C-alpha cells in the first residue's frame, strides 16, 4: 500500500532527471528536493538507530521519531556486555577471518588455473562452476546440515567455516582478472625456472592486488553478514555468531519488554566493522556489487 504510494509520487520528478533534462532553475531545485528526500529515507533509519541505542526503554517507545535521547544512557551497551554479545563478536571475527583468508587463497588458485593453466577437463570444470552458480542457496539449507552431520563436523568451527571456503563467483572474479594480465610476465619467470606455484604466488598474485582486495571485501562482508549457513551448521550457544545471536534478541530471548535500545545497540555494533571497511574501500565495493549479488 505505502510502497505503491511512494512509487507513484516519485516517478514524476525523476522523469526530469534524465541526462538531457533541461537545466532550468526550477527543475534543478525540484531535483535536489528529490535527492534529499531519498537521502532522508535512506539515512534517517540509521540516525534513529544510533540515537535510540543511547536511550532508556520508556524514552525509546514514547519518542520513537526523535533521534535525540531525553537522557543519554549507556545501559543498552552495558546490558549487551552482560549477555553473550562479546562471545558472538569473537566468533564472528574468527569465522570471518578464516573464511576470508581461505576463500581468497582457494579462489585465486582456481581462478588462475582456469585462466592460465592448460589441463585436461578445464572447460568442463569451468562449465560446472557456472552451472553451480545457478543453484539457489536456500535449497541447500537442509542438505548442508545432512552432510555436515555425516562428516562429523556439525556444531564445530570447521562446519561453519569449510563450506564457505570456496565460491564459484569468487573464482570467476579472479579468473577474469588473471586473463587480463599479460602472459609475457609469467613466461619470463618460467624461463628462469620458477615452478608453476612459485610463478603464481610471487609474480602473478601480487599483480592481481585490486582483484584480491575486491574479493577479500566481498568475502568479509558475505561471511560477516551470513545467517542461514550458521543456522544449519551449528546449534550450541557457544558457537553463535553475531547474526545468529542478535537474531535471537528479536524473538525476545532476553525476556520481557521490547527493549528497543538494546536491539538497536546490538544492530549498531554489528554494523560498525562492515561500515568501517565499506568507507575505506568504497570503490572496491562498487566494483564487486554485481558479483556479490549473484550469490544472493
Amino acid at each position: 500500500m505505502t510502497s505503491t504510494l511512494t512509487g507513484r509520487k516519485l516517478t514524476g520528478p525523476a522523469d526530469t532527471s534524465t541526462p538531457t533534462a533541461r537545466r532550468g532553475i526550477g527543475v534543478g531545485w525540484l531535483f535536489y528536493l528529490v535527492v534529499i528526500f531519498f537521502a532522508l529515507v535512506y539515512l534517517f533509519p540509521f540516525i534513529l538507530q544510533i540515537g535510540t541505542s543511547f536511550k532508556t526503554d520508556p524514552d525509546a517507545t514514547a519518542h520513537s521519531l526523535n533521534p535525540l535521547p531525553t537522557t543519554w544512557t549507556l545501559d543498552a551497551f552495558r546490558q549487551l556486555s552482560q549477555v553473550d554479545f562479546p562471545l558472538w563478536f569473537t566468533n564472528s571475527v574468527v569465522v570471518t577471518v578464516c573464511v576470508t583468508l581461505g576463500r581468497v587463497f582457494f579462489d585465486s588458485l582456481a581462478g588462475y588455473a582456469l585462466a592460465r593453466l592448460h589441463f585436461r577437463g578445464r572447460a568442463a570444470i569451468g562449465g560446472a562452476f557456472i552451472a553451480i552458480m545457478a543453484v539457489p542457496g536456500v535449497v541447500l539449507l537442509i542438505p548442508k546440515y545432512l552432510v555436515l552431520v555425516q562428516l562429523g563436523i556439525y556444531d564445530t568451527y570447521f562446519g561453519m567455516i569449510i563450506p564457505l571456503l570456496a565460491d564459484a563467483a569468487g573464482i570467476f572474479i579472479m579468473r577474469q582478472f588473471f586473463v587480463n594480465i599479460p602472459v609475457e610476465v609469467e613466461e619470463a619467470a618460467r624461463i628462469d625456472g620458477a615452478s608453476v606455484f612459485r610463478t603464481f604466488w610471487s609474480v602473478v598474485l601480487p599483480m592481481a592486488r585490486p582483484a584480491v582486495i575486491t574479493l577479500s571485501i566481498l568475502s568479509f562482508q558475505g561471511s560477516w553478514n551470513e545467517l542461514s549457513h550458521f543456522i544449519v551448521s551449528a546449534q550450541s550457544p557457544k558457537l553463535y555468531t553475531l547474526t545468529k545471536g542478535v537474531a535471537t534478541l528479536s524473538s525476545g530471548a532476553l525476556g520481557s519488554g521490547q527493549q528497543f535500545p538494546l536491539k538497536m545497540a546490538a544492530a549498531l555494533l554489528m554494523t560498525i566493522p562492515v561500515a568501517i571497511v565499506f568507507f575505506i574501500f568504497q570503490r572496491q565495493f562498487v566494483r564487486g556489487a554485481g558479483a556479490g549479488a549473484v550469490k544472493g
Partner: protein
Amino acid sequence: MSVDFGPSIEQNIGLAASLSKGPPNNRKGALTKGQGKAGWLFVAPSVVIILLFLILPVLASLWVSVSDWSGKGSPLSAHWVGLKNYDALLGKPSLSQKNMATSYRNIFYYVLLVVPLQTILALILALVLNRQRLRGKGFFRTTFYFPSVTSSVAISLVFLFLFQASGAINAILAWFGINGPNWFADPRGVLHLILGGLGVDLNNPPAWLTGHKFFSLTWWDWVAGPSIAMCSIIILAIWTTGGTFMLMFLAAMQDIPEDMMEAAKVDGATPWQAFMRVVVPALKPTFFLVITLGLIGTWQMFDQVFILSQGAPQGTTLTPAYLSYQASFKDGKWGQGAAISFILFAVIIVFSLVQRFVMRDKKTISRRHRIATWEKS
C-alpha cells in the same frame, strides 16, 4: 566499467564459449609442460569443497525427499517411500498442503511487488545520480548503497523498531491524520481490505470464493493479497536492495555514449522521449540482469522471516524457504522439508526460464556483442 563486474548471468553464455575454446596459447609447448598436474592441484580445493557441500548435499537431499528419514542416524539407513512426501504436499488436501499453499500465496505477492518496485526504485536512484551536475554525488551514492552491505539481521531489527505500533512510521502517518496499523502483528490481507472498502463484507465473504479450494486453500484466501505484516517486509526488501541494483544501472548508464544523447536532443526529443527511446533500450541487458537476480533472490526469502516473524501472524509471512526449514528442523519431517525445497527449486527454474523467454533478445547482434566484449576482457 562493466568489465569490473563479476560474471553476471547474462555473460555466462559468453564465458562458456570462451572456456570451451581451450587454452589461448598452445604454441608455447615447452612452457605448458607440467601444467596438467598443477592445474588440477590448483582447482582441487575448490572442487572438493563444492563437491562436498554443494553437489553431495543436493544428492543427499534428493534421497531424503523420497525416504522416511526421521533425523536420527544415517539418512542412508532410512527407507524408500517413493513420492509419498511429494504426494503429501501436492496430492490430496492436507494441513501440510495448506501450509505450503499459504507460503506460495505469500511469496507470490511478495515477488510480484518487490521485483518491479525495487527495479523502478533502483532505476530512479541511478537516474538521479547520473545527472552530470550533482553536488555530493559520492555522498548520495554511499547513502543509497549502504543498506546493501549491512547485515539483514541489523536492518531487520531497525525495521522492527520503525514499524512497531507506536514507532516512527506510525508517528509520521499520524501527521497526515492516518491511524497506522500494528504492522508486524497485522494479518489482514491488503486485497481483502480493498475489497472491504468496495463494500464486500469481510466477516461474511462471498460463498463462491470460500466454497472452492485450490491446493487446500480457499479462493478467498488466495486473493487475500500480502498481509500488512508482509507489506512491512516488502518495504524492507525494496529499500535494502534498491541500492545494489542502482549501482548496476549506474554503471550501464555511464556506458551510454554521450553523442547518442546529444543526437536525441538535436532531433528535438523531449527528456521523456530521450529517456524512453535512448536510455531504456540501452539499459535492456541491465534490466534483464536486475530482474533475473531480483527473481532468484525474492523467491528464496528466508532471513527476514526467520528474524522478524517466523511466519506469524497467522502464517501470512510464511515463505517456502522458511517452511522447508520449519518442517525439517522444528517438526522433524525431514523428507517433507527436502521435498518442499526441491519444489521451490523447480519453481525458481521454471520462473527463470519463463522470464528468459519473455525478455529474450530478439536481435541476436546484441548477444554476439556481449560475447565479444567478454572475450576481449
